[in-house]
C-alpha cells in the first residue's frame, strides 16, 4: 500500500524530488568512497562554506534566468567588489558594517548598469553582461595592481567567511562536545518545518487541492526531520553553524519568500513565462528586468564579501568562473532556460549538488582534468533529465 502510493507519487513528482535524491545519492557515494570522511563534521562545515558564495550568486541568477536573461558579469563583479571591500577596510578604515553596506550598494549600481541597456534598449543580456565581465575583470586587476593580494587583518570581517556562531549555552554540561546553540536552532527549525507543513496541508485540504496521501505525508515528514536532525548533529559536532551558512540561508529564505509570496515575485514569473502577455496584463516588464539585475548586483557584492572573508584577502583572480558555477547550479536545480520556471530552493539544491561533486572529488584526490569532465556530464545529464521529465507530462 505504502510502497504503491510511493511509486505513483515519485513518478508524478519525479522532477521535484529527483535533484534532492541525486544530492543524497552523491553524498552517500562520496561517503563510501572516502571511508566516511565526506560526511565528517569538519568536511560538511567546509562544504557549506564553499557552497555559500555560489549559492548566493545562484539565488540572484535564478531570477535572471527565469526572466529569460543571463548575467555573465557576476563572477568578476563579486571578485572586484571583494577587493573594494578589502580596500575600504584596510586603506580607508571603514567599519565592517559600513563596508558591507557600501559594497552591496556598489553591487546594486553595477547591476543597474548591466540591466539598463537590456531593459530599455533590448540589448541581449549576454552582450551587456559580457561587457561587464571584461570591465570588472580589468577593474579587479587595476585595484590589486599596486599591492597584489590585499591581506585583510580585520577579524570581525573575516569571521563572515570563516567564523561560527557563538555557543551561548557552553556552560551547560548536557551533551558534551556538542555546539548546543546550533543544536537548539536545528531542533527549533525542525519543529517550525513540521508545523508549517501540517498547516499548509490543512489549508490545501480546505480548498480541496490535491495533497499527498496521509501515509506518504507522514513518511515525508519523518524523512525530512531525520535529515535535518542528522545535519544538525553533524554541524553541532564541529564548530556549529558558520556565519556563511547563516547569511546563505537568510538570502535563500528571503528570496524564496519574495518569489513565492509577493506581487513582485509573481510578476517576475509572469515576465519569464510570457513577456508579451505580461506587458499586455499591465506589468512593467522594463522595471521588473531592471530590478532583477539590480538584485543580482547586490547579491554579487554579498558573494564577494563571503569569498573575500573566507580567503581573508582579495586576490587578482578572485571570482574567476563563479558566474558559470552559479549558472550551472541553476540549471541543475531545474531552472528552465526557456524562462518562467524555476525555484530558489531548487537552485540551492543545484548549488549543493555541484559543490558536493567538487568537494567530494577533491577529497578523493581526483585529477582536476577529470573533475571538469564529470561536472560537465552531471550538468548536461541533469538538464536532459529535466527536459525529458517535463515533456512526458
Amino acid at each position: 500500500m505504502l510502497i504503491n502510493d510511493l511509486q505513483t507519487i515519485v513518478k508524478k513528482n519525479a522532477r521535484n524530488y529527483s535533484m534532492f535524491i541525486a544530492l543524497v545519492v552523491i553524498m552517500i557515494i562520496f561517503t563510501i568512497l572516502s571511508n566516511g570522511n565526506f560526511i565528517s563534521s569538519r568536511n560538511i562545515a567546509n562544504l557549506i562554506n564553499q557552497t555559500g558564495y555560489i549559492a548566493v550568486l545562484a539565488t540572484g541568477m535564478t531570477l535572471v534566468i527565469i526572466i529569460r536573461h543571463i548575467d555573465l558579469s557576476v563572477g568578476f563583479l563579486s571578485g572586484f567588489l571583494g577587493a573594494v571591500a578589502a580596500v575600504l577596510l584596510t586603506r580607508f578604515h571603514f567599519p565592517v558594517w559600513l563596508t558591507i553596506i557600501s559594497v552591496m550598494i556598489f553591487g546594486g549600481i553595477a547591476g543597474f548598469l548591466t540591466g539598463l541597456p537590456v531593459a530599455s534598449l533590448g540589448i541581449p543580456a549576454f552582450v551587456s553582461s559580457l561587457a561587464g565581465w571584461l570591465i570588472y575583470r580589468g577593474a579587479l586587476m587595476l585595484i590589486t595592481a599596486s599591492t597584489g593580494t590585499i591581506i585583510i587583518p580585520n577579524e570581525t570581517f573575516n569571521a563572515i567567511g570563516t567564523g561560527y556562531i557563538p555557543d551561548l549555552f557552553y556552560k551547560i554540561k548536557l551533551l558534551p562536545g556538542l555546539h548546543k546553540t546550533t543544536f537548539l536552532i536545528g531542533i527549533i527549525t525542525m519543529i517550525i518545518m513540521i508545523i508549517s507543513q501540517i498547516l499548509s496541508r490543512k489549508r490545501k485540504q480546505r480548498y480541496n487541492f490535491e495533497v499527498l496521501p496521509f501515509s506518504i505525508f507522514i513518511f515525508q515528514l519523518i524523512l525530512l526531520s531525520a535529515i535535518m536532525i542528522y545535519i544538525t548533529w553533524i554541524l553541532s559536532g564541529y564548530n556549529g553553524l558558520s556565519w556563511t551558512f547563516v547569511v546563505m540561508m537568510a538570502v535563500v529564505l528571503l528570496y524564496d519568500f519574495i518569489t513565492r509570496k509577493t506581487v513582485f515575485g509573481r510578476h517576475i514569473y509572469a515576465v519569464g513565462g510570457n513577456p508579451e502577455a505580461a506587458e499586455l496584463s499591465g506589468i512593467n516588464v522594463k522595471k521588473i528586468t531592471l530590478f532583477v539585475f539590480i538584485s543580482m548586483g547586490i547579491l554579487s557584492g554579498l558573494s564577494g564579501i563571503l569569498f573575500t572573508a573566507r580567503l581573508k584577502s582579495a586576490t587578482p583572480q578572485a571570482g574567476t568562473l563563479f558566474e558559470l558555477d552559479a549558472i550551472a547550479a541553476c540549471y541543475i536545480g531545474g531552472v528552465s532556460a526557456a524562462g518562467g520556471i524555476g525555484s530558489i530552493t531548487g537552485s540551492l539544491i543545484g548549488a549543493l549538488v555541484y559543490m558536493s561533486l567538487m568537494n567530494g572529488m577533491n577529497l578523493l584526490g581526483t585529477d582536476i582534468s577529470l573533475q571538469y569532465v564529470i561536472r560537465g556530464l552531471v550538468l548536461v545529464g541533469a538538464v536532459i533529465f529535466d527536459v525529458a521529465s517535463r515533456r512526458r507530462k
Partner: protein
Amino acid sequence: MNNYILEMKNITKKFPGVLALNDVNFSVKKGEIHCLVGENGAGKSTLMKILSGVYPHGQYEGSIFFDGKQVKFNSIKDSEITGIGIIYQELALVPEMTVYENIMLGHEITKGISIDIHEMIKVVSSLLELVHLKINPTEKIKELGIGQQQLVEIAKALYRKAKLLILDEPTAALNEDDCNNLLNIIRKLKNQGVTCILISHKLKEVLEIGETITVLRDGKTICTLEKGKDEISEQILIKHMVGRSIENIYPERNTKPSEKIILKIKDWNAIDLKKNRKILDNINIEVKEGEIVGLAGLVGSGRTEFARSIFGNPDKFIVSGEIEFKNKSHKFNQPSSAIKAGIAYASEDRKKNGLILVQNVKNNIVITNQKRVSNKIGIVIDEEEILAADTYVKSLKIKTPSILQLVNYLSGGNQQKVSIAKWLFASPSLLILDEPTRGIDVGSKYEIYNIMNDLVSQGMSIIMISSELPEILGMSDRIYVISNGKLAGMLEKKEATQEKIIELATMY
C-alpha cells in the same frame, strides 16, 4: 490527356471536432489564373496546405493529380520538386539576407565546394527581370517594401521551376500601385505558361484577374464559375460565399445599451515604423455604456492594430488622435495605464500573448490585478487569491480539475474563458475582445456569448473584433467596418447584412 494541371478529388480533412474540408473537388486548367474565394474559415488555407504537403499524404482522404499523374506529398519539399510554388501571406524571407541569397536559399549554385556568387547573381538578375523588379540582387530583404518582397518570393518560386504558383492573399498588405503591379506580373507569367492560383478576399481584383473562380464555404466546394461562360458579379460571389442561414446560436439579450457614451475615439491615426506604412487612417468611433460594438473587416485590415494602439500602444506605433474615455481625455502610453483607467484587451492569440501557459489557472487570472489580492506591502494573500480565482472558475464555468492546473493542459475553449476571466478580474468598464471564439467549439462559443450578454447587462461595454460575420451580426448592437486601415462605415444591427459588411470591408 486532359488539360488540367491540377485535380484535387474528394478531399476530406478532419481535425479533432471539426470537419475542415468535406469532399472538396478543385481543378485548375493549365495556364489559367484561378481564384479561390471564401469566408475566413471556409477551408481555403487547409486545402492549400494539403496541396503543398504541409499536411502529408495519409492525413487526409481523397486524391491529388498533378499533370495527370497521381501525387502523394509527404512534405513541402516534395511538392516543390513536383513544381508547386506556394507564397504565403506571411512571407518566408530572411530579412537580414540579400535578395539573391534568399532566392537561392537551399538551392545554391556551387563551383566545387564553394558557392558561385557571380553565377548566382547573374541567374537572379534575369529572374528579377522576369518579375519586373528593378533592384540590386545584393540588397538586403529588409530594405525592400512589402510589394517588392512579394515579387522576390515569386522569383524564388520561379527559380525552383514552379509550374503552378499559389498566392495566398498576396495583395492584403499592399497599396494600390503595388497591387496593380503584382496583378500585371501574374498576367505576364500566365502568358509564359505559369498557372496561378490566387486566394483573395478582394472581390474586385478577383473579378478583374480571375478566369475561373471557385467558391468554398464551410469546407465544401460551392461552385466553380468560368469567365465568359457563367454570369459573374460581386453580388453573385458574395451570395455564394455567405449563402448559409445564420443558425440561432446567438443567445437573446434583454437589455438595451444606454445612451451614455463611454468611449469616443477621434481622428485616430497610426503609423507602423517597422513596416513604414500608415496602418490606421483617421478612424472615429463611439461606444455606449452596455453596448456590444462589433469591429468587422478582413484579416489584416488593421482591427487588431486599432485595438492595441488604443490599449496603451505596446507595439509603439506613432499615433495621433484623441481618446475620450468616461468623459475624460486620455493618453495611454502603456497597457498598465489603460488598465488603470478601466479598459481591458483580451488578445486574439491567447497562446502567444494572452496567457502564461506554464502557469496555473489561478495565477493567470489574478495577474491583471495582483495587488487586489495582496496586502499593502505587496505580500500575496493566498486565501483571497484562491477565492478570486475560484469565483471566476465557477461563474464562467471553466472546466479544470483544479485552479492549480497549468493552463497549457486546458482545452481551447477553457483557455479562452481563462483569458476573459483574467480581464474581468481587472474590473474594466470596457472590454475589447479580439477574436473571442477563434478555434473553439460551438458549445464553448455559446457559453462565451452568454458571458458577453451577462457583462453588458451589468453595464460593461464590449468591443468585439471578429472575422466571423455571423458572429458579428448575431452579437453586435452596432458594427463598424474597417477596410485597409480606414473606417469604411457603420451599420446598425437592423440594417446589417453579411453582404453589406463584405462590401464595406473590401471598399479600400
